């Protein structure tokens, strides 16, 4: 499992300045003030500017023009800042208008009906406008809020859906954690941590990436989350100094687990409490599922191991005794002082010893490989390997077992390099060649071909011979299977299951089916091709 630390680019594109709510306040000449005071000062400033401008131009402007301008200012302020700043502005504007533009000038007195009417209409208009714009503002704000909530619900639903998809099939803790971050990083989740809690303290079980901070504060928060069954840590009342927020995971039977989450909110999106607990629940369920399947696997493995063990004993007693009997028999005849052999007879006995010894050697090799596979201690010594080289070497080593069969190779030049353990893969190829030879008539041809199929290199081993029932092709790879009519020296029946084990260990696939022309059997191995394997070819060529 490689560490998957996501660092996707989460910066939203910068909004144009007119969209930014606080654009004005960010201008350098606007003093930093309490947010509540700012609109009032702003209103004052606007009225002063309008009045000063109008006063300067008073010879060209009527009172009606000035009031219209001021009303416009009030309207704008009420749209921008709400009722109270605009009310204040309206009052100021009325007074300033009276003082500067209505006779008698430079007094707050009003004389004559006309002036009273003008003043009353101004105040009334301002109040009405403020009322309606306030109402409209509220409605629009409500709509925005609803829309935002709907959007958030939708995002949350998507995240939960994605989480469910990602979590299914993950079995290890680190896989679960990585999948959890995969699904939720759009919400700003950068770190997930699974920790178990018991009397001895808090133990970190899994986290995505090495960067996850898990220090004293985090441990205390994790402990508290478990003890009190509530969310703790970051943005909560308990241990707020922790970088991570912890949630207890419910429904775990044998482990007491808490989930730590680190959220680097990027655009103010908030993750609801509901989503966080849903996240925890899903991970808990996935964990339980993984534990259950691990237990079932164990049980199945145990049963299979038992079956395998008895099959192994049977096969050892039979398959090992036969060549041993030949060796002991032949050697004791040769050492018998009373026996007189012709040169030909002596030669035959010696050949028997040699062949039986080689057969035993092969069986032991197979048993060794099988037990390594079974024990899961297969140590892969991977390196870049030329497929043509691999096939050629396997063929040269298998020739002894493929006596009386012709081996035809079909290996186009320029196959990409694969990253495999040469020795193990060669052993798999040798086993396949052995098998192909064993189950085909003497004098026939075994064909090995390799093809570049993009994501994989496919290597096919084909022989001629009788077709098999389709069910037999899958059964071929089970240990101790000797399908079809096995020849006398068929051995342990381990060869193909070893092949499967080796190929699986390299992330490849192996399958069997009828041959291309309807006769015999074709076994195909597909080994993954990494981009580096192709790059290596061109790099190496360029280095010349």
């Amino acid at each position, binding site marked *: 499992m490689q560490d998957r630390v996501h660092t996707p680019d989460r910066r939203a594109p910068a909004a144009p300045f007119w969209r930014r709510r606080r654009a004005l306040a960010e201008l350098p000449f606007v003093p930093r003030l309490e947010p509540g005071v700012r609109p009032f000062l702003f209103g004052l400033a606007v009225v002063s500017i309008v009045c000063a401008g109008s006063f300067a131009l008073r010879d060209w402007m009527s009172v009606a023009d000035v009031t219209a301008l001021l009303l416009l200012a009030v309207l704008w302020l009420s749209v921008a800042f709400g009722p109270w700043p605009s009310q204040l502005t309206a009052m100021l504007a009325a007074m300033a208008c009276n003082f500067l533009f209505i006779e008698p000038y430079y007094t707050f007195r009003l004389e004559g009906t006309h002036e009273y009417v003008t003043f009353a209409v101004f105040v009334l208009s301002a109040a009405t406008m403020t009322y309606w714009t306030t109402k409209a503002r509220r409605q629009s704000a409500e709509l925005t809020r609803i829309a935002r909530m709907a959007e958030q619900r939708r995002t949350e639903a998507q995240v939960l859906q994605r989480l469910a998809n990602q979590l299914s099939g993950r079995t290890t803790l680190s896989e679960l954690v990585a999948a959890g971050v995969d699904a939720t990083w759009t919400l700003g989740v950068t770190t997930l941590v699974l920790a178990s809690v018991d009397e001895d303290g808090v133990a970190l079980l899994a986290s995505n990436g090495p960067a996850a901070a898990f220090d004293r504060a985090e441990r205390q928060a994790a402990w508290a989350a478990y003890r009190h069954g509530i969310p703790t840590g970051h943005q909560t009342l308990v241990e707020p100094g922790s970088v991570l927020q912890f949630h207890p995971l419910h429904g775990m039977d044998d482990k007491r687990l808490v989930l730590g989450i680190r959220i680097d909110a990027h655009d103010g999106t908030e993750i609801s409490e509901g989503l966080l607990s849903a996240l925890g629940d899903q991970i808990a369920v996935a964990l339980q599922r993984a534990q259950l399947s691990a237990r079932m696997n164990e049980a199945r493995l145990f049963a299979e191991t038992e079956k395998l063990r008895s099959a192994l004993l049977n096969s050892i007693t039979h398959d090992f005794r036969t060549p041993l009997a030949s060796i002991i028999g032949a050697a004791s005849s040769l050492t018998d002082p009373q026996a007189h052999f012709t040169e030909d007879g002596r030669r035959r006995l010696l050949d028997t010893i040699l062949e039986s010894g080689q057969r035993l050697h092969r069986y032991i090799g197979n048993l060794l490989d099988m037990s390594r596979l079974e024990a899961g201690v297969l140590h892969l010594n991977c390196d870049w390997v030329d497929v043509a080289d691999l096939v050629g070497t396997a063929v040269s080593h298998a020739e002894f077992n493929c006596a009386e069969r012709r081996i035809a190779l079909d290996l186009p030049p320029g196959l990409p390099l694969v990253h495999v353990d040469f020795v193990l893969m060669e052993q798999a190829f040798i086993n396949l060649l052995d098998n192909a030879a064993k189950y085909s008539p003497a004098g026939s041809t075994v064909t090995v071909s390799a093809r570049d199929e993009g994501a994989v290199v496919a290597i096919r081993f084909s022989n001629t011979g009788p077709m098999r029932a389709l069910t037999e092709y899958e059964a071929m790879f089970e240990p101790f299977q000797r399908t079809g009519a096995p020849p006398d020296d068929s051995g342990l029946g381990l060869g193909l299951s070893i092949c499967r084990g080796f190929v699986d260990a390299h992330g490849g696939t192996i399958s069997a089916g009828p041959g291309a022309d309807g006769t015999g059997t074709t076994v195909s191995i597909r080994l993954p091709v990494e981009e580096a394997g192709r790059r*290596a070819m061109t790099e190496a060529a360029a280095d010349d």
Partner: protein
Amino acid sequence: MTDDPSSILVIEDEGQLQRLLQTSLEAHGYRAVVVGSGREALLRITASFPDVVLLDLGLPDMDGVELVTRVRQWSDTPILIVSSRDREEDKIAALDQGANDYVTKPFSMGELLARIRATLRQRMKRDGGDILYRSAGLEFDSQRREVRRNGEIVRLSRKEYELLRYFVLNADRVMTHEPALKAVWGPAQAHETQYLRVFVGRLRQKLERDPAQPELLVTESGVGYRLRTLPTT
């Protein structure tokens, strides 16, 4: 065989194999001395300068690789490793420490004798001058910087030539990947096995009769490559 038979020191702790090796080697005209421990072996090598040392890696008193390292500090006596299949890493380590070749248990006597002969041959032709090397249809002439196959000149790129020259200098010896990469590409590329794969593939295309089943430049599974000296036709 020459008048003075070559002496072989067999380091092997198992009685059966001791007997088999001594008998068979003497039957082929060698003088064989068998010892069962690493300590004894070191004494013997110092005292009697054997022509070839046959070393089983699984010794009771000493790590076989360690023994190779110690012998190489003061002696270039050819060392032939005998290893079992579960000691692949040791085999490479021993070769990298200066062992000359290896055989894997169980081996046929013919195989072992061939290796011993090749090791003895190597010993005779070590000198720094120009090389004229022949194997089957291949002819390598370092003085004229020419490579011929069945008498016809083969065009090799610079790196291809360098690599072939390296194999020729170490003909019949199994060469592990790292030293080969260091010698031809330089120490910075000592782990870029893919270069070696690609260039060995190319040399085979140009030099082998059947590149898919090479006879000259053969792969030693999981260990390295060997340039085999075959009789010229």
